[in-house]
């Protein structure tokens, strides 16, 4: 299974690079703000069944050919829980891209090993002291999400929120929620995500964050450019969306473009990735969470 996965990743990396070469690198403005969405590539929002084939029935997880099962959410206790966002995806985009050979929806990638490992690391390195099972899966239109002001969403290249999901996320972010977006690559996906996100917060500007930003020094002092993406030799970038598009105000969302720190969490302890690189993935995550809890 692992060689297949490695081969798949290499293939994807190659495809992604080709695609990028064809389109040219994503233009950056002087302020590091992405340009507006490409209207020509506006996509029609199409609904897919929210649950797909995912069922919540006891702890566990599965890959390829298995029907993924979700662990029950941990009861609310006012502490930090790792919350993964389950979202509606555009079936055209999920079917139009390489399938990676998995049957599960894209939002569930790395679940639940990634969160379990991250929670362990948080227990060991910080005073956050979450429980081993303090990880949940919620949709953005679920009122329960408001009890967890930090959330994680991955593989947003096919994210296609329903109006209720978009409204829910809009309110979540404006009230004080913080969203970590991870694990997507290629300008096409980025432009798609930017465009889709503007259905949540119209006019939202994605501002590039560099080493000097507070978020990269909230627990560990790290150089985000040194976090090598598991996809291979790419140029990861970090975008932030601020309240009122004002960088002096609250950061509501951070976007790991061309990177996948969740991948490191999932496979840490298996030796699949080098320890140093894995550590960087954890450091970024801890910085994000500490920042989200203090800013």
């Amino acid at each position, binding site marked *: 299974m692992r060689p297949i996965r490695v081969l798949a990743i290499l293939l994807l990396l190659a495809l992604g690079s080709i695609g990028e070469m064809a389109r040219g690198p994503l233009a950056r403005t002087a302020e590091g703000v992405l340009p507006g969405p490409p209207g020509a590539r506006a996509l029609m929002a199409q609904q897919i069944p929210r649950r797909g084939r995912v069922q919540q029935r006891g702890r566990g997880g599965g890959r390829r050919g298995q029907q993924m099962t979700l662990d029950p959410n941990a009861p609310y*206790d*006012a502490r930090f829980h790792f919350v993964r966002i389950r979202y509606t995806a555009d079936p055209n985009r999920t079917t139009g891209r390489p399938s990676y050979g998995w049957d599960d929806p894209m939002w569930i990638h790395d679940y639940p090993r990634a969160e379990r490992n991250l929670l362990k690391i948080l227990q060991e390195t910080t005073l*956050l002291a979450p429980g081993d099972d303090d990880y949940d899966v919620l949709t953005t239109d679920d009122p329960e999400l*408001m009890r967890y002001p930090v959330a994680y969403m991955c593989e947003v290249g096919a994210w296609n929120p329903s109006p209720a999901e978009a409204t829910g996320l809009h309110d979540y972010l404006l009230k004080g929620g913080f969203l970590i977006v991870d694990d997507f690559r290629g300008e096409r996906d980025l432009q798609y995500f930017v465009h889709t996100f503007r259905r949540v917060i119209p006019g939202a500007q994605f501002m590039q964050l560099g080493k000097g930003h507070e978020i990269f020094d909230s627990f560990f002092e790290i150089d985000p450019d040194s976090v090598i993406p598991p996809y291979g030799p790419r140029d990861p970038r970090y975008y932030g969306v601020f309240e009122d598009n004002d960088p002096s105000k609250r950061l509501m969302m951070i976007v790991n473009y061309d990177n996948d720190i969740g991948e490191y969490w999932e496979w840490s302890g298996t030796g699949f990735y080098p320890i140093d690189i894995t550590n960087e993935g954890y450091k970024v995550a801890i910085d994000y969470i500490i920042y989200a809890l203090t800013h």
Partner: protein
Amino acid sequence: MHRLFELLFKYRPIVFEQGHFALGAPGALRAWLLGAGVVGAVAVATYTLARGKTRPVDRAVMAGLRLALLGVLVFCLLQPVLVISSVVPQQNFVGIVIDDSKSMELPDADGRPRSAFVQDALGSEQSKLIEDLSERFTLRFFRFSSSSSRIDGPSDLAYDGTHTHIGAALDAARQELSGVPLSGLILISDGADNATTPLTRDLVPLQAAGVPVFTVGVGDESVSPDIEMGRVELPRSILEGSELLVDVVVTQTGMGRRSVPLIVESDDRILAQEQVELGPDGQPVVARVPFQLDKAGPTRIRFRIPVQEGERVEQNNAREAQLQVLGEREKILYMEGEPRHELKFIRRAVEDDQNIQLVVLQRTAPGKFLRLDVDSASELVGGFPRTREELYRYRALVLGSIEASFFSHDQLQMMADFVSQRGGGLLMLGGRHAFAEGGWIGTPVEEVLPVVMEPPQDGPDEFLAEIRVAPTPAGLANAAVQLGAPPGEVAARWDSLPAVTTVNPISELRPGATELLKGTGEALAADQVVLAHQRYGRGKALALTVQDDWLWQMIPPVEDQSHETFWRQLMRWLVDGVPNEVRAAVAQEQVEQGEPTRVTAQVSDSAFIDVNDATVTARITTPSGMVEDTALTWVVQRDGEYGLDFTPSEEGEYRIDVAAERDGHVLGNDEIHLRAAPSDEEYFGAGRRTQLLERIADETGGRFYTPTTVSTLPDDISVTGAGVTLTEERDLWDMPALFLLMFMLMAAEWGYRRSKGLA
């Protein structure tokens, strides 16, 4: 009543009160009693021995009546007298102390001003009262309002005084007449005393000197119809942008129950307007009015109710108060022991508040801290402050979920001193490591907190209870928990907020603490104390025992500002009134031109230890712009207190900047304001205060009169015993009451005989 008494007993009651009883008959009392006994025995024997158709009971009744008659007769023969000391005519002085304040010009129900009595009774030498008094005494006249002085007569009165200081006026008159034989003082006033010193202090010298005060109360006891606003209390200072919730007491008499507007304004700008439903006659109602002050500097607030048609007194519809609106940025230190959502949301709630700087020391890992919003790279670089100077730079301290054992004993003691000595605010938040669960029982901080902590229950599961929060009656009156809702909707606003949780079961308050918010929940054995506060030394301490009030931000609609408002008001309240190293004050914020007052300053160093060797200077800027520096001198009896007597020489606003230094090092400074202006104080509580005037008379041995009873005053003073007196005996045997009694006894015996067929 007194006239009837005088008719029956020959003299007025005061003569009996002042004199003592004696028998004037020659010979020994024993002989008289022996003679009376013999006569009585004969009388009894006569009735006992007589027979006929009388029954024993008839004989007993008639013997009794006859004995009583004989008894009265013998009493008269004993020549009873009253021995009294009466003044020697024209040998004594009487001081007439007349109220010269504005309230004496208020019209009574008959339309005549109170001062009309003065004119009628004392205005001419032909008036009966003056004539009677002048026959026996040498009269001296005094006027008084806030000060008193000797005058030639009532014609010198202007009735323009803006205060009434009765006690000081009486004592001043006593002192001025201390060199002459003084029979007493006559006080003519409506009794509307508004002195700030206790009256008792001024009455003691009068009592000691044996000077009786005869009070004459003028004016109606109740001014009707009228609306009157009670005194309005404002804090000395408040942060710019803070919301104030002020209770205004309004009383009506004779106006009927109606709704009137209450307007709050400053510099001709209306800050708030509320409708007030007036209560029944004489029953005060409390109007609660919220408003915000958003302009830094000395601010005069005016509360007024527009004059209603027919009101007797218009000036008592408004009150003014002064306060200092501070534009400073107050530093609050928030120590959080574990990363949790609470910190983020509190920071966010106050981040736009230009007057609050929330400095955060967040422990993220053992020995690892995150400092936020510090002023310099060195601030808190060593972690939590280890010296008083370092901690006392902050105005308030917020303790999050952090265990007591994190701190050294010195730091814990320092935190307690921070509240008690420095006067700072302390707020402990609920959390896994807060209160008893954080091991705070038995620490110096425990007694600072307004709640009683019980040792946590041992068990496998951590206590967690979901609670709904509601304001207590005290909370409804506190600006910190209004959530920006209109006064009548505060409780409903709280009810609309989602439930929160607590891990610190706390249900008991410390004695003297006040509960502002309470929580109810199924998992609770008793109602949870959610927010409580208490004064502790110079400062105050608060306890907020929930751990996730940020749900009030996350769950209500986006536009809901309850959480932000709650925290801004709470933080502002926490730093409200926290003193500086130099705290200046003035005895009264408003005095009249020429009225002395006192400026004081409490001076301490950066560790808030009182300093007695400082150089303290007051730079006084007069309303006309003149500036003069005057030194304040140390008040030896009180550590750190310096004082200066000051008399404003012109009308207007005085600015007083007080600065203190020691050995060339500036300790601090403060700014206060004093207003020199005529006061409307006379128009408040303008009804005649009979009780006060009666009390003055009772405590000094005098009597209370009204204009209708004052005619007996000259006679009463004559027998007070003060001054140069003669002892005289006044016969009592010829009292009409005795003859009437004898006649009645004889008539009773005759009537009894007639009724029994014995006549």
